[in-house]
């Protein structure tokens, strides 16, 4: 242990030194008689403790302590006084020395104890100071603003970041009453909140409100009010807050956009309904005219051809309109019955219908639903999906090889997958990838194709939370992968 003794009285030094070695035998002592020498010694050496006499030739009392306090290295200081100037020793405690000893009362034990305590106390103090610095730095450098509010709603303290958020350069500018800077429309809310948390220790309430910045503009804050009035060290409601003006602005913009979209979507639905209905009324009349018309009385060939063309166009228009109405129905989810249904059952129902058109279907089609026998879906939709996928595969079979269609269902992650693979003519994925499930998209010069089937499959899947994907190679074949939700919704 390194000890610096600053003492001009040789006799006193001798005694103190004796007691020191008695109490701390391994103590290494440096002795100086002038404060200037002491300061110099501290600059150049490390000391665990300083024993300081208060009446030195070049400095007296408080001045010595203050001089020592200016140094970078601050070892603990124990002041040595005579019986006559005991009061000076007591006063020195206020200046930050760790202890004072009256020279006549010193012995080895007392000195040793005082030194040990002083070192320990100094260390604790140092740790506290460091902690304090650290927390201060955290608070000052946080982007969140921090303020203390007393029980009367008056702001008593604000962090740098808080001042910055509110646009103040220093606390001097501030009128510290909460009421002055909360937006009038939000004042009632804040008062209510404050009264709500006041009676309850440790109560935290979060809210959003507007405050007036130094420049007079209002900003939105998101804030937590934390009642720490009962904590003696705090004795305040702690308010931490951040500026969320741009977020609120974004939310408001988005809300306006959603409202606009909802309105135009409602208009569109209404329009679709009116269009389909108002088109349908005259169209049914046209069909009716064709039905009741006595075709035999038309003798003129030209006229007959024209009427036949009229008939054909009318039915074409009717088909298109029916398709569109069906699309609208799927989108509006009308007539949906969601329940657990058997893949196998629905599959058989749809191939029964298809078999009337494609009698050899049994030979080209294999299906395996053993892994996943049941799915939570609408039976009519599922039947339509099977019909579409299978009839598509049949329609686009490769003429040079016998068609094979394989269907299987399996679990993947949290979903049910239904795969339909064929060895047909396939598609160029580069060409079709963005359009294949679009409305009225056709990729072959096939007269039957309307470009509606896959669109409907996708719409029906999407409407019930599923999806569809495709992979295909020209002249090799196509695989459609359908994803269904696994659990009941």
């Amino acid at each position, binding site marked *: 242990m390194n000890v610096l003794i600053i003492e001009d009285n040789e006799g006193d030094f001798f005694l103190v030194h004796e007691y020191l070695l008695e109490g701390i035998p391994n103590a290494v002592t440096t002795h100086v008689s002038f404060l200037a020498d002491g300061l110099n010694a501290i600059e150049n050496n490390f000391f665990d403790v300083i024993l300081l006499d208060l009446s030195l030739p070049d400095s007296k009392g408080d001045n010595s302590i203050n001089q020592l306090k200016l140094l970078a290295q601050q070892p603990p200081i124990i002041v040595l006084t005579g019986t006559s100037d005991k009061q000076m020793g007591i006063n020195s405690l206020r200046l930050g020395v760790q202890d004072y000893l009256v020279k006549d009362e010193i012995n080895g034990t007392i000195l040793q104890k005082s030194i040990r305590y002083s070192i320990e106390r100094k260390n604790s103090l140092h740790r506290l100071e460091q902690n304090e610095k650290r927390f201060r730095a955290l608070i000052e450098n946080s982007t969140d603003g921090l303020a203390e509010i007393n029980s009367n709603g008056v702001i008593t303290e604000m962090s740098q970041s808080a001042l910055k958020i509110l646009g103040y350069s220093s606390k001097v500018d501030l009128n510290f009453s909460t009421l002055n800077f909360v937006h009038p429309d939000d004042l009632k809310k804040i008062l209510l909140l404050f009264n709500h948390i006041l009676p309850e220790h440790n109560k935290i309430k979060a809210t959003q409100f507007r405050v007036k910045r130094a420049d007079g503009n209002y900003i939105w804050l998101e804030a937590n009010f934390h009642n720490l009035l009962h904590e003696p060290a705090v004795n305040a409601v702690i308010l931490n807050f951040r500026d969320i003006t741009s977020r609120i602005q974004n939310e408001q913009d988005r809300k306006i956009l959603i409202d606009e979209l909802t309105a135009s979507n409602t208009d569109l639905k209404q329009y679709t309904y009116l269009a389909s209905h108002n088109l349908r009324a005259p169209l049914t009349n046209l069909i009716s005219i064709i039905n009741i018309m006595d075709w035999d009385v038309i003798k003129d060939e030209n006229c007959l051809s024209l009427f036949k063309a009229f008939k054909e166009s009318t039915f074409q228009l009717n088909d298109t309109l029916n398709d569109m109405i069906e699309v609208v*129905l799927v989108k509006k989810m009308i007539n949906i019955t969601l329940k657990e249904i058997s893949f196998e059952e629905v599959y058989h129902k749809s191939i029964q219908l298809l078999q009337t058109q494609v009698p050899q279907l049994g030979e080209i089609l294999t299906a395996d639903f053993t892994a996943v026998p049941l799915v939570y879906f609408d039976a009519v939709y599922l039947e339509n999906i099977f019909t579409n996928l299978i009839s598509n595969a049949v329609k686009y079979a490769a003429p040079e090889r016998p068609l094979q269609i394989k269907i299987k269902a399996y679990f993947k992650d949290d979903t049910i997958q239904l795969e339909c693979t064929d060895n047909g003519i396939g598609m160029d994925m580069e060409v079709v990838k963005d359009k294949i499930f679009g409305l009225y998209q056709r990729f072959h010069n096939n007269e039957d194709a309307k470009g509606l089937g896959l669109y409907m499959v996708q719409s029906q899947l999407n409407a019930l939370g599923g999806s569809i994907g495709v992979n295909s190679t020209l002249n090799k074949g196509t695989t459609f992968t359908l994803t269904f939700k696994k659990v009941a919704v």
Partner: protein
Amino acid sequence: MIPLVISVDDDKVTQMLNQMIFKRSGFSTNTITCMNGREALQFFEKKATEADIEVNTPALIFLDLNMPIMNGWEFLETFTQQFATVFPSVKVVVLSSTINPLEKEKALKNKHVIDFLCKPLTLEMVAALKNASSINHYFKKNN
């Protein structure tokens, strides 16, 4: 043949075509036409005040659903409330271009409604309608 039917539809061409079909299929002799539910209701209101309400009362109402002023549903509801007991023999056939099956279900719950037909009306549909139990007695003598 049914001596008198009333056809409620806001579309004049439909009215004309319906009458043509009634005539050609030997379904009804005369047809009263109303452009909406309100007109049809007014007809029955007037009829109800007459001394002998059985005379010249249509046996069947062909009712469109989507009409201005008073639609088919509103007519059906008011007619059922006010005139069901006054004209117990009057039946309703809904003739609509709706594509919603729920509407058919809803319409057939009304005990006056004997059928729900989708437009356009055809000779075949009218022929089939003749067999409906509540009106087939009109056609037995002729056949």
